[in-house]
């Protein structure tokens, strides 16, 4: 009750200032009361925080009468996973989201000089999110008392579960701020100053999303044994699209601060980024894609309201933008393509375009279902289409490093020639591993070019229209570049992007894998490597085991966790600087292959490896009333054994078989018996004991992927921090310079 009331009151308290602001607008008077009512945002945020605390409290104190706690937590969970249970389900996730949204709202409220309607727009979105939390409340209760919960899905019981979802939700929540600022600026008719205000928020949201995505990829590779870090799964895509959109947004903002030509794209990007956040949430939470994804999620009734929310945000923001479209300042002077602003603009558009393509691919199940014949796209669609986009981005990155921000590049494009060895080096690197295919190699080359261009730095930053190029000015401008504080984060991020894409292409195009069944203790060869399966070690009996292997003389251990009916296999990874050896066990057989056999006194059975079985006698045992026995003759390789199998009557119509083993290999047990006829299971232990199906793969240069991801994370996060503290000063300095 407490949580529900808190959320409801938060909704009311958010509605007050939003309504006051709207009324103030329509009656065209800035009322002091309207200003005062903004204090309600604090109350709303406090109420949401109370709801969050309450949910945390009921999870930690095992109050299983709450359905959410019952569904995602359990008594025996550790504190860590009880914390993670908070966002393991849809209801808790939305509460977390709206909590982060409200906190960011408060931070936004403290900023001076933001467009006056910004908070109202932000509050309006908060109302919508709160509505979802009300409809999908984590505070629903059972009528009866529950003693224990279902527990957290074992797949999610991983330390990464603590950081991965909250970071994504922080990114989602963060992207509402640029949208609010953009809409606020449209209402305020000040179309330029919002860009500077939106930049740090966009950077922070972009960084949070990116780090969250990278953690997810690392998690999938390291723990889940999905064989890779990225599978173009709809759930993955639904966070990738906003990330690409946020990347476009950041670059549009950066350009828009300097050049008016990026203003309209910046507006569009704020809408695109936030609408894709909501749309991705809609796709993955509505259950529409449940047949298309490895992630499990089901329709829990949020589909319609999320769809409505997507439509509303898209419609309202687009209408507002269209209404003001003509008033947005446009570029007066003709623009040369040979400057960095133009290239940044194009690059951002390409990023957004890639976002659109991924969006299209992810939406195909939805679109084709509406057309009547559900279809989905293979991962190949994304792999094929993303290559040209990457190629263009690297080309732009390489050229942009030559060009000045403003004016026109005066020099020759031949200046790029000294960078070509780097391109060839990366192509050669790829070729060694061996990456084949002209498009892959082309993109590798361009990545190398862009990488070298980052280090080369701009030929000269400014004034290139008039100053002839000579070494002295070049050096001077380079030292100036090095000193410029905001440059370094972007440098790191761009180098990271080159590393990431190089790593992705090489590790996926040169990925080799082989599947085989290993027999306990026998040496086998996979991918030219010697591999021996040593068996299963029991760390905690019936709960935590691990499979032990020796690959090329070195031990590799693959953990496996058992949670009642659930088994979670983890891969064994042998890390190398240039190559990871990735061993993923998937299926063990320790029960052997069972065959059912109907055996009568007249017939005989020929089993595996020439086992012969005859039924000699069936009857009721005298010692145990109601129990049945069968006497069997077993012949293998001329040897003869006789066994008696029993079906013991346990009372109340129940029977228990007792198994007998012949020749130390075949386990025989009686299933049913009639006079002169029995049904047997024959279990061949040899086919079974100590067999394991494994997939061995080599992941060349996977470390470049992690390095690139790390650099992008550092670069974007650092830029966000820098822009927050030192941005206005740095910008004005540069404006003066221009």
């Amino acid at each position, binding site marked *: 009750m407490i949580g529900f009331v808190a959320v409801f009151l938060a909704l009311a308290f958010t509605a007050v200032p939003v309504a006051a602001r709207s009324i103030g607008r329509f009656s065209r008077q800035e009322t002091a009361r309207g200003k005062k009512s903004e204090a309600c945002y604090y109350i709303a945020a406090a109420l949401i925080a109370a709801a969050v605390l309450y949910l945390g409290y009921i999870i930690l104190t095992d109050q299983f009468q709450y359905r959410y706690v019952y569904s995602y937590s359990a008594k025996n969970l550790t504190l860590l996973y009880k914390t993670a249970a908070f966002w393991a389900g849809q209801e808790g996730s939305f509460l977390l989201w709206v909590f982060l949204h409200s906190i960011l709202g408060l931070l936004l409220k403290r900023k001076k000089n933001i467009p006056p309607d910004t908070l109202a727009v932000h509050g309006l979105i908060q109302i919508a999110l709160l509505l979802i939390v009300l409809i999908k409340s984590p505070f629903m209760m059972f009528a009866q008392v529950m003693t224990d919960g279902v527990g957290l899905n074992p797949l999610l019981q991983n330390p990464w579960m603590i950081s991965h979802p909250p970071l994504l939700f922080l990114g989602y929540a963060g992207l509402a701020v640029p949208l609010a600022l953009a809409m606020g600026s449209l209402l305020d008719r000040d179309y330029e100053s919002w860009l500077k205000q939106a930049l740090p928020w966009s950077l922070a949201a972009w960084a949070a999303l990116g780090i969250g995505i990278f953690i997810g990829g690392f998690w999938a590779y390291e723990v889940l044994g999905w064989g890779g870090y990225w599978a173009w799964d709809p759930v993955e895509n639904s966070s990738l699209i906003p990330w690409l959109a946020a990347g476009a947004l950041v670059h549009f903002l950066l350009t828009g601060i300097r050049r008016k030509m990026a203003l309209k794209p910046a507006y569009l990007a704020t809408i695109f980024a936030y609408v894709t956040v909501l749309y991705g949430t809609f796709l993955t939470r509505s259950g529409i894609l449940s047949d298309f994804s490895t992630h499990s999620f089901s329709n829990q009734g949020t589909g319609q309201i999320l769809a409505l929310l997507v439509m509303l945000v898209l419609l309202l923001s687009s209408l507002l933008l269209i209404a003001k479209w003509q008033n947005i300042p446009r570029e007066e002077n003709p623009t040369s*393509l040979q400057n960095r602003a133009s290239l940044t603009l194009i690059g951002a558009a390409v990023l957004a375009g890639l976002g659109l393509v991924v969006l299209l691919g992810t939406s195909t199940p939805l679109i*084709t279902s509406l057309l009547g014949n559900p279809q*989905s796209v293979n991962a190949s669609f994304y792999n094929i289409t993303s290559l040209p986009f990457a190629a263009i981005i690297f080309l732009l990155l390489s050229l942009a490093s030559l060009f000045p921000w403003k004016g026109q590049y005066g020099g020759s494009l031949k200046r790029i020639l000294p960078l070509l060895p780097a391109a060839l080096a990366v192509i050669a690197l790829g070729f060694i591993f061996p990456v084949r295919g002209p498009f892959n190699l082309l993109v590798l080359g361009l990545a190398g070019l862009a990488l070298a261009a980052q280090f080369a730095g701009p030929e000269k930053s400014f004034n290139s229209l008039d100053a002839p190029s000579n070494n002295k000015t070049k050096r001077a401008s380079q030292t100036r570049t090095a000193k410029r504080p905001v440059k370094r984060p972007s440098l790191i991020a761009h180098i990271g992007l080159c590393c990431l894409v190089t790593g992705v292409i090489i590790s996926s195009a040169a990925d080799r894998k082989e599947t085989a069944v290993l027999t306990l203790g026998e040496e086998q060869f996979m991918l030219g490597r010697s591999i021996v399966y040593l068996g299963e070690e029991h760390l905690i009996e019936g709960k935590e085991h691990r499979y032990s292997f020796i690959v090329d003389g070195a031990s590799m251990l693959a953990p496996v966790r058992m949670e009642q009916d659930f088994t979670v296999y983890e891969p064994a990874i042998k890390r190398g600087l240039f190559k990871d050896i990735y061993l993923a066990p998937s299926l063990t057989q320790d029960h052997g292959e069972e065959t059912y056999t109907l055996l009568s006194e007249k017939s005989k059975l020929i089993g595996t490896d020439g086992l012969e079985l005859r039924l000699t006698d069936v009857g009721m045992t005298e010692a145990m009333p109601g129990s049945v026995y069968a006497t069997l003759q077993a012949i293998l390789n001329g040897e003869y054994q006789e066994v008696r199998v029993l079906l013991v009557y346990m009372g109340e119509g129940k029977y228990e078989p007792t198994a007998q083993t012949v020749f130390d290999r075949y386990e025989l047990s009686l299933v049913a018996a009639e006079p002169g006829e029995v049904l047997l299971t024959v279990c061949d232990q040899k086919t079974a004991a100590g067999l394991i199906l494994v997939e061995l793969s080599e992941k060349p240069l996977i470390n470049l992927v992690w390095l690139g991801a790390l650099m992008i994370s550092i670069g974007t996060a650092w830029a966000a921090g820098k822009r927050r503290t030192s941005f206005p000063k740095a910008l004005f300095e540069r404006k003066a310079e221009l």
Partner: protein
Amino acid sequence: MRRRHLIGIIIVVLAISFCGMALRDSLSPYVSFAEARESTKIVQVKGDFVDKKVSLWDEGRGISFFLEDEEGTRVRVVYAGAAPDNISHATSVVVAGQYQGADFLAERILVKCPSKYQVEGDRQ
């Protein structure tokens, strides 16, 4: 300016048609096993994982299991790779691939685990 716009439009049109072609090539429809047999492209079949038993296929080249589609056709699915986690607990499985002889050769397997970890909505 005019010429530049034209070039821009041409590039965008080229990009769209490229993506359109890629999309057309990689679309795989949801069909039944009977329809899959007729098809020459990669298709997806959703089926019930009836006997919940996964066996080794072709001496460990991969795995095989039986699926029953909505029309009740029972087909052996073979997959050259390791079994996805918890396939033995799956109720329904989506396989993408094509027929190879009498078997359906899957390129990709999607496992749907209903498991106890998802509480049904009507359990109040």
